Structure formats: C-alpha cells, structure tokens
C-alpha cells in the first residue's frame, strides 16, 4: 500500500526536480526563440556547473561562494563559446548548428571525463540545509525545499524581467520577430550574447543545485539535455509558461515513475511527448513569447 506520506515525498521531490529542469529548459527555450539556435551543448553547461561546483566547494569551503563563482565561471565560458563559435553561425542552417553544438558537447563531455573521471561525484549539502523536516507526516530533506524555493524565486524573477521590464519586452519582441527587432535598431549581437550567457548561467546554477541530488558524471549532460529538449518542445518553442508547467509535469512523472514503475518511467515520458505532438503539432502552449 502506498502511503499518503510517501506520495507527498515523491511529489515534493518531483517538483524540485521539475524546477531544476525548468531552469535548464528556460535557457534552451530562450536561446532557441531568440537566436533560432538548437543548442545541443546546453546540458553540458549543466554538467560542468556541477563539476566546477564540487571543485570550488572544496577550495572555497563555502557552498554559497562556490555557487556564485561557479555561475560566473560557466557564464564566462558561455560568453567565449558565443563569441568564438556561435556568432559566425547565426543565419546558417540548423544542420550546421546541430553539428557545431554537438561537437562542442562531445568536447565538453570528454574534457570533463579527462579532468574529473567517470565516477559519479556528489556535492555535500551545506550544514544549514542538512537534515529533514516533517510536512504532514512526510519526511522531506531540507535541501529539496531549498531547491524548490530557489526554483520558484528564480522562475518568478525570470517572469518579472520578461513581462514587466523594458529589457524583457525587447527580448520578447526578438523572439516574436527577429528581423523587426533588428530593424528597430537594438544592438542584436549584444542582446544575443546576453541571452546566451544568461541561459548558460541558468544551466550552471541548475547543475550546481542538482549536484547534491542527482550526482555529477559524464553522461549527465546528454541525459538532462534530452529532458530539456522534450520540455521545450512539449511546452511549445519559445513559450516559458509552457516550459514551466511541462517541467513540473515531467519532474513529477519521473519521480513517481522511478519510484513505482522504474521500467516504465522513460516510456511514460516519450508517450507524453508523442501524444502531445500528435494532438497539438506545435506544442501545448502557443508561442507565448512569440
């Protein structure tokens, strides 16, 4: 018999996982919407965020300082990638972009294996967030709750910036009509670089926060990339609202699936995607930012 407490635990775990996936998918979705680039190296920044985080926590001996430094370092890496590799590729075919970002993902994965090895590594949760609390009888690790809070806060901030600020309206306009944004005289290269670096930083943040839960290992990059791609496509390209709800859905189904029907977890995931695309050929949510 499955108890109510167990269900609640899995639900909260699933929501935390879903929010982490949302942070990853949001960047992927923005980059696709804004620059029309399918960034297959997006999961690599998630993985790198985890690895660098583990290293920095050891050196800096502070979880929070390490988090900040990790996000900055990976964002810098993202900037280099944008300027050196991606910039010459806007307006080239999707096939070229696929080959480039896939090549980059391979280099990053193999590089990570070279530096950190193939072993699964984990990040120790800071003292303040260790232990568990009881919610309606369900035992929930404090860290999961912290991830939930961080995810909700970042999601809300993202929504606020996109919906309520001038910068946000420029980005939304860019997703809706790239040519028009350029015609209006906005500095497209700077905006593109900014969106890409921001997306990468989100991925690194999510990768760092996920490290204590999922562990970090070469291969994690493609694993989360596929999930993020699925979320972005089911949600509807360029729709952050869509990505948000679908992330939660996927996080929760994965959590329950892995707990109760481990063999069917992947099956359910792909079944959902196939069903959604069959019924709504352009994703669940019409392009909200488009």
């Amino acid at each position, binding site marked *: 018999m499955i108890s109510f407490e167990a269900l609640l635990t899995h639900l909260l775990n699933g929501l935390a996982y879903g929010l982490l996936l949302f942070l990853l998918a949001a960047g992927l979705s923005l980059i696709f919407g804004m620059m029309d680039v399918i960034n297959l190296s997006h999961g690599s920044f998630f993985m790198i965020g985890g690895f660098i985080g583990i290293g920095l926590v050891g050196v800096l001996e502070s979880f929070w300082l390490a988090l900040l430094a990790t996000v900055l370092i990976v964002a810098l890496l993202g900037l280099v990638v944008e300027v050196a590799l991606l910039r010459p590729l806007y307006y080239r075919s999707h096939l070229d972009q696929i080959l480039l970002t*896939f090549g980059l993902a391979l280099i990053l994965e193999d590089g990570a294996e070279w530096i950190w090895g193939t072993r699964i590594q984990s990040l120790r949760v800071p003292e303040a967030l260790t232990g568990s609390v009881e919610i309606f009888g369900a035992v929930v690790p404090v860290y999961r709750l912290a991830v939930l809070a961080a995810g909700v806060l970042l999601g809300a901030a993202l929504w606020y910036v996109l919906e309520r600020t001038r910068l946000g309206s420029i980005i939304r306009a860019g997703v809706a009509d790239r040519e028009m944004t350029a015609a209006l005289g906005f500095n497209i290269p700077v905006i593109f670089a900014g969106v890409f670096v921001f997306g990468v930083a989100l991925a690194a943040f999510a990768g760092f926060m996920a490290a204590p839960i999922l562990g970090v290992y070469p291969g994690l990059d493609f694993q989360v990339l596929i999930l993020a791609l699925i979320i972005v496509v089911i949600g509807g390209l360029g729709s952050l609202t869509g990505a948000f709800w679908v992330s939660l859905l996927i996080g929760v189904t994965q959590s329950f699936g892995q707990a109760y029907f481990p063999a069917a977890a992947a*099956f359910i995931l792909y079944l959902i995607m196939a069903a959604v695309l069959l019924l709504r050929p352009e994703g669940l949510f019409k392009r909200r930012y488009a």
Partner: protein
Amino acid sequence: MVEATKPGEKAGRFPVRAGTLAVLGALGALAVYPFFGTTYMIGVLTEIMILAIFALSLGFLMGYPKLISLGHAAFFGGGAYAAGIVAVRLEAANLFLTLVCALVFATLLAVLIGVLSLRNTGIYFLMITLALAQLVYVVAEQWTWLTGGTDGLVGIPYPELFGFFSFDRFSFYYLVLLLAGGAYFLLRLVTRSPFGHVLLGIGSNERRMRAIGYGTRVYKLAAFVLSGAVAGVAGALWAHYNGIVAPVDVNWPLSATALIMVIVGGAGTLVGPMLGAAVVWFLDTGLSSYTERSTMIMGAVFILFVFFARGGIAGIARSLWERFYARTGT
C-alpha cells in the same frame, strides 16, 4: 557558363559523370580489396558499409524532402531485430527470409511512424520521430522473451541460402558490398525520377508544391517509408554481422550518429552520407584504439567541419572539382 547548361540539368551542381565515376571506382576498389586486405580490415569495411547504407537512407530523407528525423534507429534496429528473431527464434537464417522479414517489418514500422509524425514539421518532426522511436526502444528492451531484453538477442549466425551455401566473413563482405551498391543506385534512380523531383520540390518550397496541386504528405510518407525500408535492410545485415542485436541498436544515440554522418558527409547528396559514415566510424570507433581522447578529437573535427567544410565532404569535393574545372578551362 550557366547558359550552357542543358535544360533540366542542375546549374552548378556536382557534375553527374564525375560523381558516378567516383562511385564506380570506389565499388571496384572495394571489390578487389579482400584479396589483399587483412581479415580485420575486411570486418571493418563490412561494418562501415552497413552503416553507410543506414546513413544513405537518412541522407535521402534529409537531402531531398528535407525531413530531419531523429528516430531512424527504430527502422535500423527494427530490421535488425526482425532478422535476428527469425534467425534465432525460428532458427531460419535463410538470407531471403531474414532480409524480407526485416524489410517488411521496417516498412510497416515506417508507415506507422510516418503517418503519426508527418503532420509535424521542423523541430517538432525531429522530436516526435525521437519520441516514437524511443517507444520502439522500450518495447525492444522490455519484451524479454522475444527480444532478449537488455542482454540482447544473441547467437545470430551468418545467413545461408537454402542449405547449400553458408556465408562466411569473406562472402558476407561481398553481400554487403552488393547491397550497398544496390541501395545507392536504387536511390539514385529514385532521385532522378519524377517522384524524386517532387521530393526535391517539397524540400525546397512545400507551400508552393501544395499550391500547384501536390498532396505533399503522401509523397513525404512514401519517401519516409522507402528510407525506413532501406534502413531496415541495413539493420538485418548488422544483425548477421554482429551476431547480436541489443537495445542500443534501436536507441536514440544511434539515430543521432546517423544524423551526424549525413551532415558530415553532406546533406543533399547520396554519396556524401555514405562517406560521412566512414569518417564518423573512423572518428568514433577507429580512433578510440589509438587514443583515450577520441571523443574530444571527434568533437573538434565536427566543429572544424562547420567552419571549413560547408556542405560536408560532398561540399569539399564539389569546390575542389569546381576549382579544377576552372583551371582546365572548359
């Protein structure tokens, strides 16, 4: 001179005769190779040729109607499982039986997946083919009594012909060579036919194709099924060659590899993807016996391709040919 081009011929396209000669030359070289080569290299070439048929099938789809599928391993692996199941579970390794079963099964699977996925376009098509193919993967992994589950289906022999001839490593090489050449020439014929020109039109401007009266979905489905069938035959050869079929043969990384083979070789041609298969095999499998960091090198080569070899290997060949042509001055 563009005006000098005969009507109906592609202006500025890779010269037809040069391409055909190159293919015939390569086939000839491959045909005499086993008399000089090592057993190991015969095996390597067999493997590459099978993958080349697979890449060819996807290249046909990506180059003409411009359908980018990320689920092609379903047909390759589907064909492999069909052949393997016939050979092992029914204990009938007759070449015609296994090939025909693989062909039929891959065709049916392609009809099913094609009907379900061709309403979607662009990245949505890419992702729904991925989703449907992964469902096939899950079936292959879970239906243990039939497929062998995660361990795979083992003990698939080389095929035989009605009890009087059994293929070995050497003769199987020639079988694969024959089928690779056959698949290439078949698809080449198709691309030059009225049907092939419809596919090219769909890839170029589907909206206009509909406006002049083509029900494009039927043509796309036909191309998808043809491509799936060829991939299924490649899969059957793969099963016989490896002696085992496992879930990795239906999983998405294999679909991604095929996609990369096509891009590296050059989408829009038929020879390109086949050469792409060889290059990617070398970077992926070949290099790994020399260095630990083969994956990194492979990634770097892909990036170099994007910057310095637009249009892939076929693109390089074309620009070399054009340079040569300009110098000899015709």
